[in-house]
């Protein structure tokens, strides 16, 4: 009997064991984007799972029965479903964002952005997911980051200058999917890309990871394009002031469980015909030029740009874990309205347009039992760039061609509005960039990564109206002589974790190899146009440390000896007034970051987080254009600058539905040595480098009304306040006594808006009113930004 009972027990147990099932599913947000690392917990404490980075989960050995599964992820409203398991079951969840944290784009859900933010290297990652319904461009997103000031020379699509921790222009690199933006030929620009087309924006502060970095003195900004894994189709259309229209269409279709196709596209159009208030306008009265202060509407400021990408992805094959092949077409057409400073005359005819065709390949594979991760990323691009600046007409701000009272039209003798001489240059740039990254897990807590980035760009063209040089009796256009640029940047990194994974340490090395070939203007003779090759090799290095003091509190520090390689134009000059300097050294900077993050959830809906960072940017051998008093110029390595600053970011959720956010940056960039060996230039030591904002901050409030008009619809209202304190474009001792003519006054901008989301239909409506107080604001010296303006946006997720 005992034997029988024992056998029965075995049989029953076996039977019961064989009656277990698996539950698999995916967790997505309302835009069908996967929510990674969400917790899936049942009412049986032994039955639970965690979603992977693609939002997928599988729970095995689930006995038959009825369970209630609860899914939670930071930044999303938890959801639960009750199911009866009697077979292998699929269980999908669609989570709603926790809308109180709409502006929580810096410290957000345990998303990729959150993971980036918590790396040892100082990164501010700005996720787009929670602001994707708003009519924003990438530049607006960046304005909410600590340490970043975005300055534009006009409206949508105008030139952008990014200041990051006190460094700007060439010192700050911008990447698209990890590849320098310039490889894409200028068709892509940070203020032409809507947030709809981006997964997130990563801001690397002073220290660049080896799998992203090229040469960059002050860090970089990586625009990460939208990378949804699930099937989706989403479109948006926005319309706003200044006849601005933006359209996006993004989607993915799975052809099988291994093959999918996707598209990512946007189109921008704006007349940018905003009113420039209180500007001087020129008219002709008799022999005299008379200036009157007027409000003028921009009349030659149109911007059109578009991006169309088609991609195929295969995954989970024996030879590849994931392979993406994408083809893109980018076009941009800009009218030019003004230069870098505003003049009483306007630019009325000059245009710049460009188109780029590019192809990208992204290959990922894990080998050696997943200990070795390989990624190859390659881009090939061709850009056609046309500049048309060849009029002799002179325009005023009313859009009139200036003429004398007798009807004689004034002639601009240079024959150009923005260049020194007429140009109709048709440039053809061919670029290719390749990055290979291999990461090997030596031990569970020790890995080694190598990265190699290679880039080649060839620039040539023709200019039918440009200057010619007589060589052997033939008039030669210098544009037809190609210039080439080659870069190879190698990186190696050792990363380890210690002390029960509380301490993360990274040590890295970079090698920058550079080769440029262009015309040697000094060697041009009557019978030849020689070219010259300049090459350099430099080393950089650094480390990063992060220590988790507690689960919700960490401290980190990082250092990099950063390098910026001189550009081709800095080395070879402009063949006209700027002479070559073939001995130009790279700019160098010792970049140090030290920061901490703390967050606390006090009770159900009450939480706060704070981040405090300090940085040092000590630069030397800075390259500057030295203009002699005989009218020529040459780029030289001269000045040194000591930079330092503090950034604070905070968010508070005092109660459900309300969220307060804010950040504050104050920085100093002191001249550490003058631009020459003259002893008198020591007088400048300790003064601020001109034309760099010193203090800026922003604050935001979000409030969400639930069940508005419909039990499932939400209305989110927001207010955002951005301030950039005054600064001078001159080197001054004291701002209080400085010449006000050269001070950019404090800029204060209030933006308000709201988003109404139809939770079940995938439709949302959003309205933003910018500069709601109609303040007079300037991005650059005396170039007014638009007054009050609005944008209305409709988003629709079809599936």
């Amino acid at each position, binding site marked *: 009997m005992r034997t029988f009972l024992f056998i029965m027990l075995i049989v029953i147990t076996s039977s019961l064991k064989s009656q277990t099932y698996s539950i698999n599913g995916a967790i997505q947000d309302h835009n069908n984007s996967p929510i990674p690392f969400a917790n899936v917990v049942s009412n049986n404490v032994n039955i639970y799972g965690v979603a992977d980075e693609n939002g997928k989960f599988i729970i095995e050995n689930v006995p038959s029965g009825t369970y209630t599964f609860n899914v939670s992820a930071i930044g999303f409203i938890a959801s639960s479903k009750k199911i009866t398991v009697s077979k292998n079951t699929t269980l999908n969840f669609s989570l709603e964002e926790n809308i109180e944290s709409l502006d929580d784009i810096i410290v957000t859900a345990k998303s990729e952005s959150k993971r980036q933010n918590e790396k040892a290297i100082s990164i501010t990652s700005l996720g787009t997911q929670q602001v994707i319904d708003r009519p924003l461009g990438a530049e607006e997103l960046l304005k909410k980051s600590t340490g970043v000031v975005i300055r534009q020379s006009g409206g949508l699509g105008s030139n952008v200058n990014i200041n990051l921790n006190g460094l700007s222009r060439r010192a700050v690199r911008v990447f698209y999917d990890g590849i320098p933006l310039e490889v894409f030929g200028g068709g892509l620009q940070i203020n032409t890309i809507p947030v709809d087309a981006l997964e997130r924006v990563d801001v690397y502060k002073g220290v660049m990871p080896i799998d992203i970095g090229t040469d960059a003195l002050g860090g970089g900004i990586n625009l990460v394009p939208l990378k949804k894994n699930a099937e989706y189709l989403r479109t948006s259309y926005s319309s706003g002031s200044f006849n601005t229209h933006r359209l996006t269409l993004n989607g993915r279709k799975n052809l099988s469980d291994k093959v999918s196709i996707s598209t990512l596209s946007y189109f921008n159009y704006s007349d940018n015909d905003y009113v420039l208030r209180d500007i*001087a306008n*020129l008219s002709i009265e*008799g*022999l*005299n*030029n*008379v*200036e009157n202060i007027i409000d003028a509407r921009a009349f030659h400021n149109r911007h059109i740009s578009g991006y169309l990408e088609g991609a195929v992805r295969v995954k989970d094959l024996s030879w590849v874990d994931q392979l993406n092949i994408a083809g893109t077409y980018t076009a941009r057409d800009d009218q030019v309205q003004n230069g870098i400073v*505003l*003049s*009483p*005359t306007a630019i009325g005819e000059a245009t710049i347009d460009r188109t780029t065709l590019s192809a990208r390949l992204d290959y990922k594979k894990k080998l050696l039992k997943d200990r070795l991760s390989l990624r190859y990323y390659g881009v090939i691009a061709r850009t056609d760039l046309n500049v048309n600046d060849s009029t002799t007409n*002179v325009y005023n701000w009313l859009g009139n061609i*200036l003429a004398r009272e007798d009807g004689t039209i*004034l*002639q*601009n*003798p*240079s024959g150009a509005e923005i260049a*020194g*001489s007429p140009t109709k240059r048709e440039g053809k740039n061919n670029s290719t960039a390749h990055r290979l990254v291999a990461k090997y897990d030596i031990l569970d807590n020790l890995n080694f990564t190598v990265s190699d980035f290679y880039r080649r760009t060839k620039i040539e063209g023709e200019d039918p109206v440009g*200057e010619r040089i007589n060589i052997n009796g033939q008039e030669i256009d210098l544009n037809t002589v190609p210039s080439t640029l080659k870069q190879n940047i190698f990186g190696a990194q050792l990363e380890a974790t210690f002390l029960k994974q509380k301490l993360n340490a990274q040590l890295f090395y970079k090698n920058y190899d550079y080769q440029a070939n262009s015309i*040697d203007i*000094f*060697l041009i003779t009557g019978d030849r146009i020689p070219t010259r090759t300049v090459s350099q090799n430099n080393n950089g290095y650094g480390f990063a440390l992060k220590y988790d003091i507690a689960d919700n509190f960490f401290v980190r520090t990082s250092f990099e000896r950063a390098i910026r390689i001189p550009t081709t134009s800095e080395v070879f000059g402009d063949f*006209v*007034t700027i002479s*070559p300097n*073939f001995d130009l050294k790279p700019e160098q900077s010792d970049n140090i970051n030290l920061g901490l993050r703390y967050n606390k959830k006090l009770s159900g809906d009450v939480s706060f987080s704070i981040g405090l960072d300090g940085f040092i940017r000590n630069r030397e051998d800075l390259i500057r254009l030295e*203009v*002699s*008093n*005989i*009218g020529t110029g040459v780029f030289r390595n001269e*000045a040194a600058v000591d930079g330092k600053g503090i950034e604070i970011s905070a968010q508070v959720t005092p109660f459900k539905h309300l969220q307060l956010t804010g950040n504050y940056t104050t920085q100093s960039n002191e*001249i550490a040595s*003058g631009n*020459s*060996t*003259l*002893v*008198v*230039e020591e*007088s*400048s030591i300790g*003064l601020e*480098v*001109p034309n760099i904002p010193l203090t800026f901050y922003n604050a935001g409030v979000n409030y969400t009304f639930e069940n508005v008009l419909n039990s499932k619809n939400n209305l989110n209202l927001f207010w955002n306040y951005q301030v950039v304190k005054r600064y*001078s*474009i*001159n*080197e*001054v*001792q*004291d701002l209080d*006594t*400085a*010449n006000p*003519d*050269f001070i950019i006054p404090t800029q204060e901008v209030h933006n308000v808006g709201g988003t109404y989301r139809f939770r079940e239909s995938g439709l949302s409506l959003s309205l933003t009113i910018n500069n709601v107080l109609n303040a007079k604001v300037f991005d650059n010296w005396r170039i007014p930004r638009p007054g009050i303006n609005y944008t209305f946006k409709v988003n629709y997720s079809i599936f």
Partner: protein
Amino acid sequence: MTTQFNFKSLFTSVLALSLFAFTVVSCGSDDNNSSSSDDTPTDDDGALENKTTGFVVVGRTSSGSNVVKYFEEIPEGSTVDISDGTDFSGFTLHTTFESSMYTTRQVGGPGFSKYVINADGEIELEGNISAIGEGTARLAIRDSQLGVFQDVSTPNIISVFNPETLQITGQIDMTDAFVPDDEQPFYQSFYFRGDDLFANISSSLNGDFFNSFIVHQASVSSNTFIGDTQRDGNGINGIRSIRHYGQNRIDDQGNIYIVDAGIFDGTGAINPALAVAGRLNRIPAGSNEFDPDYQFDPALILNPTNVVLPTTTKFIVTSNNKAIAIVNNEVPQEVIDIVNEAGGFLNLTPEQQRELQDILFSAASGRWCELDLEAQTVTPLNIPSVGPFSFGNLVQIDGEVYIPVVTETENAFYKYNEATGVTVKAFDVTGARISDLVDLSIDN
């Protein structure tokens, strides 16, 4: 009732306080005015008049901006800090006339600005001449009713204006003046001799330098083109010229001197036979042409072997047929070493030629010299050597010539007494590299 009473009391109190505050402020203001008016003349309306005496020191910071600071007295024998002066993005001074300083316009667009020093010693914008062409930067004044400038948007026109009103009163059509290859002229400087206006060309508007040094002449009484004259070079390389501040180009006999800088692209280093030294070109009194018999090349007189960079810059005529200028004197030892290493000028590689040019342009190889315009002698002054294109302009104050000396270790004005032949340091300047010294009481 009580409420009404309190309101009235409050209103009365506020009114009283306001009146008191207004009175105090007004008294204070009057006090200030009277304090100033003790020292500063007022005009017919009682407004404080601008400074007509005193000195302005202009400097350039390491960032390229300028600082401008006013001094009641010339700071003899001291060290002055101008770093707390008024900052400008640029302050290119063209001339000083009737205590007003005329500069290239920095705020609002191309053109020129007229600045004064107000009663408080602060620099103040008096008005602008609006131009159309970016790069417009040449202006000169003859008297209170007549000045000229070139707007590069109409390069063949010399505009005549009234310095008091800043209104354009006429135009001189220079279309018939000779410019090689029918290019458009970019004038370097304007000089007056009575009703004669001389305008030397720096380059074409596109920046091309010409093989000849060309001077156009016009009449400001009839606003007509008169003629042109030129000095030929070697027929291969461009002759250059340097901007010179102010007027002071006419000697005691009425001869006018217009200086070119020669060829300084290193041609002389490669082939001494092609060297063209900077020259004082003399247009004799009563003539409109360069005097072909007057060939005064100071650099070659100071050092006949200096064929590498034989240039003369920063020239003014003082008195007694004397002039002051920077004359490049030496071939720096580094250059000699490079040439020797190459085995002679002809063997220089392009890299060595560039290195050589860098050294020549930056080395302190220039000497401030007194030139005897008749005897054609060159006498170095006893002050430190400077770069051949050193910053700073000359000014004559009370019979002494104030000379800017900017070297690696000095940033000072020296003064040269022509009567005694003695040169002493006048004052040191800190805070910015000196560029101009202005005596508001002198038209220059």
